[in-house]
């Protein structure tokens, strides 16, 4: 046994890392292996997605954002406090409170997040954003909506009007709570709804997401003005449920924003999951839902939450070049006074710009806020034109 030459003893030291590398890369290849699916046209896949009616599932969603924003997860008050949309001290208007609210929203737009999503019909859903050593939960059970944040042990309770339940088109009945991760279905719905002649719809190679074979629907804006290069949506070949959404900035090869199921089961989740009782010792806040409850679409811009009575936004442009403008309001002063936001802003002619890979936000000197998936220059000219 011991007569083997010295170099032979080093064989395992070379072989084992090689095997590990092969297993790792092999696993990566296997995950990306394309499935062999029946031929479909892009239109057929669009219809398949439109007909999707998956109301009951449980799965894990991974969201990765590389929007060019600094990583805020390490900023104090970022992920560790006040992370849910309406924190218990929502009345506070000081910098710290604004910061924590804003940073919570921004934090979801940076780095990676994973969330578990459970849904059982249109009125029962639970989203768990899995933070390190903490968790943000949003539970909807019938007309009850609970938000729980484990980092500060706070609960927000709301009652949903009875007629609001079936409003969502697709079956992903996740609670319309900000501060949570969207499912691919929710995000995809926004893009799919917006498919119009300004969008080129094509089909990529068949793919596999969360162990399910899927068609790869690629939406490419025809115009050259938008920052969005393409959106690729993996549509489950069986149910039509969007399994992943990847948004690429123009000219980029890696997604600036992606949401994908990493695991998905179509079984009915345990009913216990939707039963939520505020834990003992938690601070519970009752909160009425704003009447114009969010439309659940793919608007993932960093809109601050919890402010009452938003001024009506003005929408200009169409398709991918849509620009949303908020008239003069109190919010922007709050925003610019927040050191966190101030850090992200670049002064330009006529205001300050928050530039991300996909979305630009212009805070004009006269207090308006303009946002859109277009370059800052487009916002500037739009602001000047109004």
């Amino acid at each position, binding site marked *: 046994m011991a007569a083997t030459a010295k170099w032979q003893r080093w064989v*395992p030291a070379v072989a084992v890392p090689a095997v590990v590398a092969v297993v790792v890369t092999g696993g990566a290849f296997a995950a990306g292996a394309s499935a062999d699916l029946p031929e479909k046209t892009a239109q057929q896949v669009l219809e398949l997605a439109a007909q999707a009616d998956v109301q009951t599932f449980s799965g894990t969603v991974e969201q990765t954002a590389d929007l060019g924003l600094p990583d805020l997860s390490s900023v104090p008050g970022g992920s560790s*406090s006040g992370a849910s949309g309406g924190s218990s001290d929502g009345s506070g208007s000081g910098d710290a409170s604004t910061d924590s609210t804003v940073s919570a929203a921004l934090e979801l737009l940076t780095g990676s997040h994973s969330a578990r999503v459970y849904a059982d019909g249109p009125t029962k859903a639970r989203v768990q954003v899995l933070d390190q*050593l903490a*968790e943000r*939960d949003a539970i909807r059970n019938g007309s009850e909506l609970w938000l729980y944040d*484990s980092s500060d*042990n706070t609960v927000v309770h709301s009652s949903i009007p009875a007629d609001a339940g079936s409003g969502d088109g697709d079956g992903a009945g996740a609670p319309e709570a900000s501060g949570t991760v969207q499912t691919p279905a929710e995000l995809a719905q926004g893009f799919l709804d917006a498919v119009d002649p300004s969008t080129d719809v094509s089909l990529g190679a068949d793919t596999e997401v969360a162990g399910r074979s899927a068609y790869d629907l690629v939406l490419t804006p025809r115009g050259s003005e938008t920052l969005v290069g393409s959106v690729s949506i993996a549509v489950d070949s069986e149910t039509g449920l969007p399994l992943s959404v990847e948004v690429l900035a123009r000219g980029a090869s890696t997604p600036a924003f992606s949401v994908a199921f990493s695991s998905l089961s179509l079984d009915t989740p345990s009913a216990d999951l939707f039963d939520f009782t505020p834990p003992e010792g*938690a601070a519970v806040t009752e909160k009425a839902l704003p009447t114009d409850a969010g439309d659940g679409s793919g608007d993932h811009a960093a809109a601050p939450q919890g402010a009452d009575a938003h001024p009506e936004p003005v929408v200009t442009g169409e398709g991918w070049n849509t620009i949303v403008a908020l008239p003069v309001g109190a919010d922007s002063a709050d925003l610019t006074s927040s050191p966190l936001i101030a850090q992200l802003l670049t002064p330009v002619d006529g205001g300050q710009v928050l530039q991300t890979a996909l979305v630009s936000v212009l805070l004009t000197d006269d207090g308006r806020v303009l946002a859109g998936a277009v370059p800052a220059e487009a916002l500037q000219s739009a602001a000047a034109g109004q």
Partner: protein
Amino acid sequence: MSLSETTPRAQGDLEQRRARRSVGFGFFLSELGLLFRRRRTWAMLGALAAVPILIAVAIRLTDGGDGRGPAFLDRITQNGLFVAMTALVVSIPLFLPLTVGVVAGDSIAGEASASTLRYLLVAPVGRIRLLLVKFAAAAVFCLAATVTVSLAGILIGVALFPVGPVTLLSGDTVSVAESLGRSLLIAVYVTVGLLGLSAIGLFISTLTDAPVGAMAATVVLSIVAQVLGQLSQTEWLHPWLFSYHWLDFADLLRQPIEWSSFGENALLQLAYVAVFGALAYARFSTKDILS
């Protein structure tokens, strides 16, 4: 061949010996005896036990806190069982790797510096067998260290604070019995998480005859890994760092339990153990023992 040439007397002696080498359970027990008869081992376990005790006493004396500090800290006053969780969060980045680095880094280099390595090898212990037993002993220490923190935390928590059903991260509440079961699971999780570092320490320990150097190098590596894990510039590297899943033990405190991190952690550590075990084998089996 050899037996035919030995003298009849020696042959008789040989018949008293085992026909086959034992797997080494006896030697493993002896190794554990060595580990746990050291004052150093008990000092380290004592220091680890002091972490939850200090936390609990400080919280008790100051009557809570202002919400800052490590995770779970603000839960302690409501439920003493959270002392163990807080202590783990505090211990995982430094104290646990420190003690594991001492034990793993000392494993071979310590024997070399005590001049006992050559006697073990001519006993003969077999170099592979020695590596396996040393690694197993380091793994036992990882478990002992983790359980020490948890147990001391639970005990001091019960002594100083009210104890009741435990609120999980998801906001759901479980019974005390189930929370103890989950504490045990967490201890296993953290132990598994430290195995990769143990293998690295074992490998470094075969590189030198100076145990202090091997210990320091192991501990420094654990810190470097965590620093790299904090930098966004090295994000591509993060999932491959042995410390990547260390704090994910909290996934066992969700409802339902998120097992994926347990599995990923185990696979990651297995890869580290395999790679550094192979390196340690290669290095140690070709090493000239001159100490």
